[in-house]
């Protein structure tokens, strides 16, 4: 029974990683940059939801909408101010280092505003969950809701990218920025839209993550952010289904590693997965291999 319960917990954690990984993978696919600050947008989203609920006494659903709104705006502003000016920089390190700077900035602003002490995050899910097999297998409401939300987001996003006009523009920009521009696609707008969607998803991920692990600090987003990037690489960076599969697998690996190998080594195991994937199959499970043109 414990195996199944670990598996379900792993899938739940993996769903959160998958939602975060989507933000990475879409931004990477289109802007060809690793948005290091993505994990910290999650943290900002969680704080926004927390304040809305505890300070302003809003119902959870409104609080989530506020978090999504703030993060969307934040994502677009970050892109406009910090990343866009460096889009044609001669060194690709420039934008990566800037992204690290933005990550630090968000963490430290949060530290000054909200303080270093961990705050308890009230779960937004009131449902108690399921009790199966005569009480031997309990699945919390958070776990089920997280998995369901992840599935819905994934389906919606795939439909959006495949069917809608802006979604097609996204695919065009990720294939070839120059050609997309010539075809009359608004490249800047498309990139901004990608950041907006990724950041909105980050807010959702933040609320789900803190509902399951209710302790919120300014550093809450950093490690899940990096792990979600690992998930995105695992699945194949740039691929939306890849982010989904990578996220789920990584969540399961982490929970199993924590349970069966060593709880202190769980993070090391996740990073070891990244290293192995990149060395054995650098393009990830579903990614495309790109060769440098001579």
């Amino acid at each position, binding site marked *: 029974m414990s195996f199944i319960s670990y598996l379900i917990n792993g899938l739940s954690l993996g769903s959160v990683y998958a939602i975060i990984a989507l933000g990475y993978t879409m931004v*990477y696919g289109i802007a060809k*940059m*690793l948005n290091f600050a993505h994990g910290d947008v999650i943290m900002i989203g969680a704080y926004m939801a927390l304040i809305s609920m505890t300070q302003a006494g809003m119902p959870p659903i409104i609080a989530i909408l506020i978090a999504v709104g703030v993060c969307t705006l934040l994502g677009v502003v970050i892109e406009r101010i*910090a990343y866009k*000016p*460096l889009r*044609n*920089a*001669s*060194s*690709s*390190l*420039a*934008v*990566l*280092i*800037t992204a*690290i*700077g*933005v*990550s*630090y*900035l968000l*963490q*430290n*602003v949060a*530290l*000054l505003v909200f303080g270093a002490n961990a705050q308890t995050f009230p779960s937004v899910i009131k449902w108690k969950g399921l009790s199966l097999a005569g009480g031997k297998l309990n699945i919390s409401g958070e776990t089920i809701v997280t998995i369901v939300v992840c599935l819905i987001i994934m389906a919606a996003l795939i439909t959006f990218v495949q069917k809608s006009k802006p979604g097609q523009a996204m695919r065009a920009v990720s294939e070839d920025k120059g050609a997309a521009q010539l075809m009359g696609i608004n490249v800047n707008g498309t990139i901004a839209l990608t950041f907006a969607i990724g950041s909105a998803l980050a807010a959702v991920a933040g609320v789900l993550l803190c509902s399951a692990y209710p302790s919120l600090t300014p550093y809450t987003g950093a490690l899940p952010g*990096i792990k979600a*990037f*690992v998930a995105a*690489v695992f699945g194949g960076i740039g691929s939306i289904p890849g982010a989904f599969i990578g996220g789920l697998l990584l969540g399961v690996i982490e929970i199993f590693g924590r349970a069966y190998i*060593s709880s*202190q*080594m769980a*993070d*090391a195991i996740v*990073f*070891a997965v*990244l*290293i192995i994937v*990149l*060395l054995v199959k*650098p393009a990830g499970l579903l990614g495309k291999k790109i060769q*440098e043109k*001579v």
Partner: protein
Amino acid sequence: MQKTMKNKISTMNKNTRKNLITYAIVIAAFAVMQTLISTGSVSSLLEGLMVPICIYVILAVSLNLVVGILGELSLGHAGFMCVGAFASAFFSKCMRDVITVDIVRFLLALLIGIAAAAVFGILIGIPVLRLKGDYLAIVTLAFGEIIKNLVNVLYIGKDANGFHFSTKDVMALDMEPDGTVIVNGPQGITGTPKDATFLIGFILILITLFIVLNLINSRDGRAIMSIRDNRIAAESIGINVTKYKLMAFTVSAALAGAAGVLYAHNLSTLTANTNNFGYNQSIMILVFVVLGGIGNIRGSIIAAVILTLLPELLRGLSDYRMLIYAIVLIVMMLFNWAPRAIEWREKYLRFGRKKKEAVQ
């Protein structure tokens, strides 16, 4: 003909002169601080900062070898520092009663720390250097975190029967009652001799500079920079890309190991946590490199000194320390690398224009 020869000699001197100025600045700064300390006109707080400053200078200069000269972003620099720190502290603690001459013991510990970090540099470098850009950065970060994680589950004890290892806890070491715990998991190593001094730190900085500057201005340095500027062209003229990448990475790791040795021998208790050996530390070193100018060795030294001193001296600032670092990173990158900022600078500011004039 004669004109070009003269021209050549003058610029060769220019390079050497630039390096000599760097040495002179370091020596002068040391002389001034040492005088102030010996006349007792320096607060104990500031005096206590001298060894950490040396540590950060060595870290920044060595990271610049990878970021500025090799052109790859490593976010695992603190991991190599961690290896050097623990390997040397382990040695010093074991040998505390065997080798009683402090300086001999410290030199041996230094060599061990450097060697251990270099070995890790090679082991990690071989797989990592096949990657590049963002992937390389994130994998070095991963390795750094794994090293920190491993150190935290490491238990080593010693009794009459020899060494005992475990990754679980002290009890699992299964020692005789007379045994002593040397490495105690998350509690780390306690009782390392406090052998690091400002003078030793200063000498290590000079050695680091000597190695890094001479490496850059040699055939090997040219090969490393040619890989940075254009890997495919470097291969086409017969430069062994893997070898030189690994060389830069390993030298950098070894020097970070030396900084770790200093760090371990400046504290009585050595533990591995997020702030000293985690990626936060790696990023802080990166801030020094970026502020000082990527590829600019003298800049790294100055940035490391200023950014270590400022928050400590201006106490009111220390709350904002990390915030300031973050803003420094973003603004420096935008100012130095954004195409529009470069255009603006060339139009309105003096520097950056000189090179163009030389062409016309």
